[in-house]
């Protein structure tokens, strides 16, 4: 196994007309490029980032409800369950940031990772990206990744102040707020879909059939 490692590295170096690893002076330059990443070309994203996020998320059939504050979350979720005929047994991420939601007593709530039979999950989001209408979700004890994929309906509570302009802005935020990468970073742009049968788009392939963003503020 380590033979293969040595062989591959030697073959790569031979192809690059070298026999040794890069000299330290060159390696330092590469280390700098990796340690202080620079954005390359970014498509122009003009105007209000929150409005752009809403427009882009809506364009990919994500549902968006704008709420002035967190007091409307429970009612918005009730409306969602009624409209889409989803039972009110729901799973809410064990995220302390979601502890303050005043749930209607119509809901029966569990705070845990997802199971195969779960119908609806509620999670927070780390950020939103205006450029493409993309959500950024990080794994962690408070935000198990399975909640983003197993239930039929995924409801995401996103603080409008967390919407950034470009993908690179989300990376910059992540680097400044966390020392290390979590196990999983999910960039999510709309509900699950497939085009594998005659190139026609059908939603709800394996992941959520509906993605609903409750955008606060």
């Amino acid at each position, binding site marked *: *196994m380590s033979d*293969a*490692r040595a*062989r*591959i*590295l030697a*073959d*790569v170096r031979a*192809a*690059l007309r*070298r026999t040794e*690893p*890069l000299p330290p002076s*060159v390696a330092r330059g*590469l280390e700098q*490029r990796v340690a202080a*990443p620079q954005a*390359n*070309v*970014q*498509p122009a994203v003009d105007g209000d980032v929150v409005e752009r996020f809403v427009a*882009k998320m809506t364009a*990919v059939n994500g549902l968006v409800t704008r709420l002035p504050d967190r007091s409307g979350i429970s009612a918005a979720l009730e409306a969602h369950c009624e409209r889409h005929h989803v039972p009110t047994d729901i799973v809410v991420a064990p995220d302390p940031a979601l502890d303050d939601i005043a749930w209607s007593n119509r809901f029966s709530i569990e705070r*845990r990772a997802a199971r*195969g039979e779960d119908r609806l999950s509620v999670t927070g989001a780390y950020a939103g990206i205006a*450029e493409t*209408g*993309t959500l950024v979700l990080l*794994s*962690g*004890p408070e935000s*198990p*990744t*399975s909640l983003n*994929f197993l239930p039929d309906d995924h409801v995401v509570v996103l603080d409008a102040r967390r919407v950034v302009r*470009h993908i*690179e802005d989300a990376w910059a935020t992540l680097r400044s707020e966390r020392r*290390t*990468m*979590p*196990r*999983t*970073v999910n*960039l*999510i*742009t709309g*509900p*699950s879909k*497939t*085009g*594998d*049968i*005659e*190139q*026609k788009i*059908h939603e*709800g*392939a*394996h*992941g959520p059939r509906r993605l609903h963003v409750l955008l606060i503020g």
Partner: protein
Amino acid sequence: MSGPAPRSRDFERRAYVEIHNPNLQEAMGLAKQGFVGKRASAVAAVPEWEQLRAAGREIKEHTLAHLDWYLERFEAKVRENGGHVHWASTAEEACRIVVDLCRAAGARRVTKGKSMVAEEIGLNEALADAGLERVETDLGEYIIQLADEPPSHIIAPAVHKTKDQVSDLFHRHHRQYGLTERQTEGPALVAEAREVLREKFLTADVGITGANFLVAETGSTVIVTNEGNGDLTNTLPRVHIVTAGIEKVIPTLDDTATILRLLARSATGQEMSVYTTFSTGPRRASDLDGPSEMHVVLIDNGRSQMLGNEFHHMLRCIRCGACMNHCPVYTAVGGHTYGWVYVGPMGSVLTPLMIGIEDSGHLPNACTMNGRCAEVCPMQIPLPDLLRVHRERQHASRLDAPRARMMLRAWAFLARRPALYRRVVDLGARALAMLGRRRGRLRWLPLAGGWTGSRDLPAPQGETFTRAWRAGRRPR
């Protein structure tokens, strides 16, 4: 190098069969319209497209020029995050590593996300030989697994199947799960596959995915999907194994952002695929889900031999499929005709490098040199030029057809003797004009049956260009 047994020498015969296959022609007709139009509108909406292409190319060229350093940097970061990195020079080594990892995990059922490198190394056969149950989870891959066929497109593996054929497959194979009704509508078929595969996701012991990128900055592997199957594959089982070619490494998260902007637009005409997922090591101690082991298998399988020569361009390929969607040959004959894992223009370049030019038959010739593949390639890979290099090599190794060699020799003899050349061409033009004077077209011509077998040859007017020019008849 090995992997699945190539059948590329059979290209000509299979092309003939597929052109007369109504199912394939129906399916490819739909695909061509869809992919080409969607990409065109997505690209038109980004004024910065050409700058993005140049930036994407620059990122890959920079990484390839320092590939050893970036691979070691990536490996160190994966280990720092608790993951394992394995290196495989050949397809056999890669398969052995994956099978051994599955055995060590006591695995019986393995779910797989779509991975072209897994097809390339013949992982499916290796898992079957090891007695493991393999479940393809991408809907297209699942359909062709049921049909026991290889993929015919790198991002739409079942593009050659009609809905009716999918209905038949599901009807036949889903009976065992108590699903006896033959579904005929798209949504019902998707829902049925979701139901059947859900159980497999929840009970798999190992999940295997490919990688669109390996990020040296963080040690992350990145997959891009629309269905979410890749995420259920890398989240639910105890062990997550990533198979990836060594050319997939790029420096930073910001660099992934640039190439992501090129990838989805080129592949499906989306601005962003639904799920782009960065996996970094196994679950953390306090996590409530995620695999407890994570392994990355770095696969060379001929890639290092492409570095440092004209074929290094091909190592920039991000497997978007735009080249094949825009190729008149591919859209006429379908992917299976190519006889190996990679198809269309990128396949005709890669296959001879991976299985040897001797076994690649007509692939480098299955090209009209119209150049569309290079125009749409997001990584600016000069695909027609690389095919031409293969053609030259075939000629130099005397692998082209004896008759073609004879004709080329005859032409070369004439081309070096301008006076004789002019006389022969003049004679030929007059003779053809005479033969075709009644209809203006020729229905048959010796040595040109390949042309006249399917269409008429327009007859020349009787005078060569040189003669007309000399006589002062200038084209208007």
